[in-house]
């Protein structure tokens, strides 16, 4: 599935994708120096499409999501370059009020840890209903009614009785459903799910992913799924963007990337999954640790951990180039890597 043609709601608005992230840079100015969290990433998202952003902790995937939402902690976080266009207009140059009006209404986010992300002193009904009160001017009673409907929609049992309960009275999975109900309350065009299942049991993880996939099918929203779980990506993502050290190092249709990676880092990720047909064998982790974003290695930031690195790699930063149609890789030896599969 390519990006521009597959939205249930028809073609993208005027040929423009729903969301375009264009050469985005984010840095954190800390007492210990400048941390380059996001270093020139670009991607697009269309209605009805699921884009997975894959990467290790600290590779900049959550930060880029917060930049899109406009909720970076600033200071210390600053967007230092690039554009984020929603339906063609740049979010970064909008007024604060225009940005706020889009948040929750057009672009929504589900965070990783629902317990800490929900306010402990307000009932879940009040927190879901707040979306309608803020953006639609709903009365308290109407907002509560809408909250109950949403809780039913994300299949929280006995929603009517539980609408006045507080977050700590729900199980982890149910709390994440509350978060999802809140995020989809106003039928946003884009939903960002930032590691939505990381804090949950495996069985509950599957239920939450199914729910997200189902809601997306119903509403035709574009879904950005931020995760480090390759299994989840393989199941529901149309396209995948692999991030490393604040850059996108490989992107393409999920099936194609998974069956034949064109970047040694992606190769390493694939090799590190436990597989049934390799039972009893040792796992193959990627050696070394993710780079320090305040002090990146020269050239290709992956070269210190790369089994294919040559003397050339530390000298030049490989740009993200098209290897075969629809497939991009940021590796000096992308064609070679791809040929090996």
């Amino acid at each position: 599935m390519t990006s521009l043609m597959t939205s249930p709601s028809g073609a993208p608005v005027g040929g423009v994708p729903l969301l375009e992230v264009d050469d985005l840079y984010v840095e954190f100015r800390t007492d210990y120096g400048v941390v380059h969290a996001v270093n020139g990433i670009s991607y697009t998202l269309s209605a009805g499409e699921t884009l997975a952003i894959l990467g290790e902790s600290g590779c900049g995937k959550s930060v880029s999501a917060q930049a899109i939402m406009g909720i970076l902690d600033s200071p210390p976080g600053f967007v230092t370059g690039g554009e984020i266009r929603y339906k063609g207009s740049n979010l970064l140059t909008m007024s604060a009020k225009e940005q706020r009006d889009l948040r929750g209404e057009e672009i929504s986010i589900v965070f990783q840890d629902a317990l800490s992300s929900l306010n402990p002193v307000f009932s879940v009904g009040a927190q879901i209903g707040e979306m309608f009160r803020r953006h639609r001017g709903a009365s308290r009673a109407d907002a509560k009614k809408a909250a109950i409907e949403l809780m039913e929609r994300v299949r929280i049992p006995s929603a009517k009785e539980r609408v006045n309960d507080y977050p700590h009275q729900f199980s982890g999975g149910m709390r994440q459903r509350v978060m999802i109900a809140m995020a989809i309350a106003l039928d946003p065009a884009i939903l960002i799910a930032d590691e939505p299942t990381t804090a949950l049991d495996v069985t509950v993880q599957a239920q939450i992913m199914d729910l997200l996939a189902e809601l997306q099918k119903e509403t035709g929203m574009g879904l950005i799924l931020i995760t480090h779980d390759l299994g989840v990506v393989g199941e529901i993502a149309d396209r995948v963007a692999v991030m490393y050290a604040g850059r996108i190092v490989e992107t393409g249709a999920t099936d194609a990337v998974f069956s034949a990676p064109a970047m040694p880092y992606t190769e390493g990720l694939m090799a590190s999954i436990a597989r049934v047909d390799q039972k009893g064998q040792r796992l193959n982790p990627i050696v070394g640790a993710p780079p320090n974003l305040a002090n990146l290695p020269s050239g290709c930031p992956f070269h210190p951990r790369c089994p294919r690195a040559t003397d050339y790699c530390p000298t030049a930063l490989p740009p993200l180039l098209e290897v075969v149609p629809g497939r991009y890789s940021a590796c000096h030896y992308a064609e070679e890597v791809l040929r090996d599969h």
Partner: protein
Amino acid sequence: MARYIARRLLLAIPVLLGATFLIFAMVFALPGDPIRALGGDRPLAPAVQEQLREEYNLNDPLPVQYIKYVGGLVQGDFGRDFSGRPVSEIIQQRLPVTIKLALVALAFEAIFGLIAGILAGIRNKSFFDSLVLVSTTLIVSIPSFVLGFIAQYTFGLRLGLFPIAGLNDGLQSYLLPGFVLGALSLAYIARLTRTSLVENLRNDYVRTAKAKGLTPASVVGKHTLRNSLIPVVTYLGVDLGTLMSGAIITEGIFNLPGLGRAVFDAIASQEGAVVVGIVTLFVLVYILFNLLVDVLYAALDPRIRYE
């Protein structure tokens, strides 16, 4: 909840008994003979002294005196001072002054402490934040009697803005002593509010509130403040108890006829019944406000429940 409150109230009985006994014993242990001191330069006739001692049970050993006192308490008799005036009457007359003083002090510390704390918390590490830090440190390090005299001199004498002492100007008379009494807690509240707000602003739910498109005023004023104020409100509750009993010095400086003054005078003249009666009232107030705070805590934070 009702059972919890009932249990706490039952627990208050041994606390009250213990507190009254301790105070009773301390007054008993004071050196000097209060009855002989009554006459001053012209001692009372030995027969009269003896009659008074008999009347006030002063010839009995301490435990017997105490049991007789508690026996009276149970029947609602707080005893009398040496001039025969019932202690309950003294309390009735003096209590309103102390309550008004404590409420003015509470209003001062709540309003100014909260405003300073919230502004410092929002503008974390700004000039205003440092200003609050420095000025609250200063206030905390000045003893209240020094602060009292400074306030009397500058605002009362030099600027003539407030009455200096006494109760002749109605509510106005309470402003300066209320400020002096509340100053210490004002500083604590400013610091507590600031710290709590800064801490809560780092929480994930603040990010969620922003992501919902709420205005900064709503993110801070509703979502963050509601959480930050839980410790502050509980502090205010306990403090009201402390303010009422802590008014002894302030009432002295500003010559206010409240309970604090009454206790002070009664200690000087060893009026056991008056001291024990008023201090017991302080203990009771303290216990009740502590209970109130615990109940309030559960109302403010849904995560807290009492069985």
